[in-house]
């Protein structure tokens, strides 16, 4: 299985290496990878019957419980077959649809990267690897939505999609880590054996919230649904593959995966039921106000995803069976409708459903596929859609609570979806030929054969449900539930209420189809509600966070170095001052304080005056001289308190500095005042506070007892080990000899810098 997952990535790497010539000459060859993978998964079908599963584990970071482990059970089998099967069709379709496109190789690279990541998501047994593959699908989706990268709207949609799904993914990761630390394992298989550890955990609600946000963003649930219509900027094969059949179902997959682990609690069931119900109704109604075929399909996809979340939320055996069945049904008919839309777009150059008609005279096979897909989506008997709709109605109708309102919502959704499906699959082909569809003709079989294949599957599964019942659908159910299964698929359940609902749906839907025409005007009428839509609210949040970030940066990083210094120092001062005043007791031990002699007083006096002179004087010479006085006063302090070496160094260095200043004095800028009085007052206040804090801190530290161990070691051993009597010198040239050597190097570097700066002529036109 590892190879199955990785082959897509390897292939994605190879695609750019295959020359463009090879791509054009043998385009169908590229489809070999998904086809082979599809056959591989078909060959594994027998091994997952009756609820068994295959497990494959390769250690990756076992210390953290992260392993490349894969689990193939009913649920992942259904998804794997969809990913590889529809993938194969999309690969074939693309080879003609994007024929001659300069970025075709890139496109195939992204597409196979996506396929591999999606397989990774559905096969992963480890939560962390699942997360990695999950984010990889978001990233490949980002590249594919922004595939027409010259268009600004494409790039924007790609950013929105990545923003929403990436955000959800990160939130989900937090949930996974929580699960890992609560249950002690990241393995899904192990989690399934002990669901009570999580459902009984005190953080259960938080885990749910985090995982739900991940699933809802990915599967475009209300209020995160709006990235999906935007994602329709991608080329149609991408919309087919990622944004209707597979990737957007990853969230549904996740919920189905976690049903045996986190499910069967009121929190789980009600949240999913409510969110799913809102999404399915909201999006289904929205679909009826669109005229762009892809928009209609986008909203009906959101609605279908809502139905899936809703069914998983109901959580009964019938509901879960309905979810499993509907995943397949929806993938088959929606992929077909998308591919057909692509063909229409390709042949007529328009996707406006109100202007396209009569195409069945031009392209009969496509029209047939369109009719099949539309009828399957409507749930007409003998199509797969009928089965899944029956099961869904059964599940809703037999609910112990709130059955009436939920049934009404489900029927309403199904009616709207029926109309949307008819618009996409029937309306463009019937009626009189319009101006737009005049020049259309039947395209290459590479475009329409995939739609026929999908239609054929819908019909054959619809007529012979036994084909998929035991091999595919019941294993899906068994991987979502614990305990025995007594469901079955049947075409005929007898005369009952559910059948009546089905008939009602068909009748009302068809009536609406004939009486309600798609038009721009109706779409424009919905625009006035846009400002309340979650899309605007979330985008507004995004914009205001950007504005906030801009202001924040402008305030703290405004390019003026001294403002950075002020910010840092104010922060530091406030922090230290708070600590000083809240928790530290100031005291003074007079025994430690030595007496003051007159000579010391004079030096202190000298120093204070010079400091004020340095700051306030207007002439450079005076400033430099006062600076020299400060240095020499320092020197005297060192001398008084037994540091002759320091005094000597300070003396010579200070002399040198003053000399250096004097040497370049006339080339130095004049001592000007730039700032206003207000700024100077502010700075002096900050400086005084800082100085006072340093003084208090010094006093504090001074009062603490000192540790003299190191000093004593140096002093005691100076002569014995190093044969030197001046301990300071011994420390510098012996104990810390290397430091001193490196220090010398620093000085040499500074000297080289000084020398070269003096001789460097930056402006060749101006000799100095």
């Amino acid at each position, binding site marked *: 299985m590892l190879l199955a997952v990785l082959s897509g990535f390897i292939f994605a790497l190879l695609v750019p290496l295959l020359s463009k010539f090879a791509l054009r000459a043998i385009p169908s060859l590229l489809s070999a990878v998904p086809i082979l993978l599809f056959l591989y998964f078909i060959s594994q079908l027998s091994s997952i019957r009756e609820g068994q599963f295959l497990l494959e584990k390769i250690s990756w970071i076992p210390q953290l419980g992260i392993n490349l482990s894969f689990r193939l059970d009913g649920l992942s089998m259904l998804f794997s077959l969809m990913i590889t099967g529809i993938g194969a069709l999309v690969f074939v379709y693309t080879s003609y649809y994007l024929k001659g496109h300069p970025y075709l190789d890139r496109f195939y690279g992204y597409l196979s990267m996506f396929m591999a990541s999606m397989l990774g998501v559905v096969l992963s047994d480890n939560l962390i690897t699942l997360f990695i593959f999950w984010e990889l699908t978001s990233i490949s989706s980002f590249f594919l939505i922004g595939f027409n990268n010259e268009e600004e709207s494409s790039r924007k949609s790609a950013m929105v999609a990545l923003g929403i799904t990436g955000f959800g993914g990160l939130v989900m990761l937090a949930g996974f880590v929580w699960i890992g630390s609560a249950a002690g394992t990241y393995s899904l298989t192990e989690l399934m054996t002990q669901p009570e550890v999580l459902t009984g955990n005190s953080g259960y609600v938080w885990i749910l919230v985090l995982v739900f946000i991940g699933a809802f963003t990915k599967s475009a649930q209300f209020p995160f649904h709006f990235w999906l219509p935007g994602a329709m900027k991608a080329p149609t094969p991408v919309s087919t593959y990622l944004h209707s059949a597979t990737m957007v179902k990853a969230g549904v997959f996740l919920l189905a995966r976690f049903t045996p682990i986190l499910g069967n609690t009121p929190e789980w069931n009600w949240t999913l039921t409510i969110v799913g119900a809102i999404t399915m109704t909201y999006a289904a109604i929205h679909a009826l106000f669109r005229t762009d075929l892809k928009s209609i399909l986008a909203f009906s996809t959101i609605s279908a995803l809502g139905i899936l979340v809703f069914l998983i939320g109901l959580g009964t055996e019938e509901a879960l069976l309905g979810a499993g069945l509907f995943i397949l049904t929806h993938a088959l008919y929606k992929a077909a409708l998308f591919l057909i839309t692509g063909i229409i777009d390709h042949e007529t150059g328009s996707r406006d459903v109100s202007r396209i008609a009569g195409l069945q005279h031009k392209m009969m096979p496509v029209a047939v596929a369109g009719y099949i897909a539309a009828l399957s989506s409507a749930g007409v008997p003998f199509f797969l859609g009928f089965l899944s709709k029956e099961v869904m109605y059964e599940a809703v109708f037999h609910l112990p609570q709130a059955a009436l309102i939920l049934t009404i919502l489900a029927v309403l959704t199904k009616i709207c979806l029926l109309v949307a499906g008819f618009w996409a699959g029937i309306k463009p082909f019937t009626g009189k030929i319009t101006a737009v569809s005049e020049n259309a003709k039947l395209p290459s079989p590479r475009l329409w054969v995939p739609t026929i294949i999908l239609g054929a599957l819908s019909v054959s599964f619809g007529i012979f449900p036994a084909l998929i019942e035991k091999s595919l659908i019941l294993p899906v159910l068994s991987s979502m539930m614990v305990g025995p299964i007594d469901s079955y698929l049947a075409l005929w359940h007898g005369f009952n209420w559910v059948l009546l609902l089905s008939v009602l749906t068909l009748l009302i839907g068809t009536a609406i189809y004939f009486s309600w025409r798609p038009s721009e005007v109706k779409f424009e009428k919905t625009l006035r509600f846009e400002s309340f839509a979650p899309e605007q609210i979330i985008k507004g949040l995004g914009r205001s966070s950007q504005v906030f970030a801009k202001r924040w940066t402008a305030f703290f990083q405004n390019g003026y170095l001294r403002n950075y210094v002020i910010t840092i120092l104010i922060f530091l001062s406030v922090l230290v001052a708070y600590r000083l005043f809240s928790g530290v007791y100031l005291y003074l031990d007079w025994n430690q304080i030595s007496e003051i002699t007159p000579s010391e007083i004079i030096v202190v006096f000298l120093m*204070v005056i010079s400091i004020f002179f340095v*700051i306030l004087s207007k002439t450079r010479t005076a400033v430099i001289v006062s600076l020299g006085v400060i240095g020499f006063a320092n020197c005297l302090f060192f001398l008084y308190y*037994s540091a002759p070496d320091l005094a000597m160094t300070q003396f010579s260095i200070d002399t040198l500095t003053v000399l250096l200043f004097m040497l370049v004095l006339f080339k130095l800028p004049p001592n000007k005042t*730039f700032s206003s009085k207000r700024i100077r007052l502010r700075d002096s206040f900050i400086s005084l506070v800082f*100085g006072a804090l340093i003084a208090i801190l010094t006093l504090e530290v001074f009062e603490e007892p*000192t540790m003299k161990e190191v000093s004593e070691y140096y002093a005691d051993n100076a002569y014995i080990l190093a044969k030197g009597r001046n301990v300071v010198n011994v420390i510098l040239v012996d104990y810390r000899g290397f430091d001193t050597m490196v220090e010398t190097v620093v000085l040499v570097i500074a000297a080289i810098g000084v020398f070269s*700066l*003096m001789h460097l002529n930056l402006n060749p036109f101006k000799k100095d």
Partner: protein
Amino acid sequence: MELLLILIIGLLHAGGLYMLLRRSMFKMIIGLILLGNGVNLLIFLLGRLTKGHPPVIDGNAKIFSEIYADPLPQALILTAIVIGFGLQSFAIILIKRVYQVLGTDDLDELNSTDEEI
């Protein structure tokens, strides 16, 4: 006496910071030097003041027989003074060159590569 030294350390830090915040590059360097002096004095003070007993062992003894000033802060400060000098001299020459080439001493005129705010 220590209290007076603490006062001076505070003044040197305050004055150094104030000069560092000026727009003139010349004043900025003065600020750096003041801060350096202040820090040196601070380290020195924390080694405690000892009068008349430099950390030098008597001519014929092998170890100290009476009290001595702490040699460790002194060694640290010595390094700091020398390195500080390297920094100061480089900075002095640098502003001299900057002034020659650009004809300004105002730091605010030197940040034009930054984006407009």
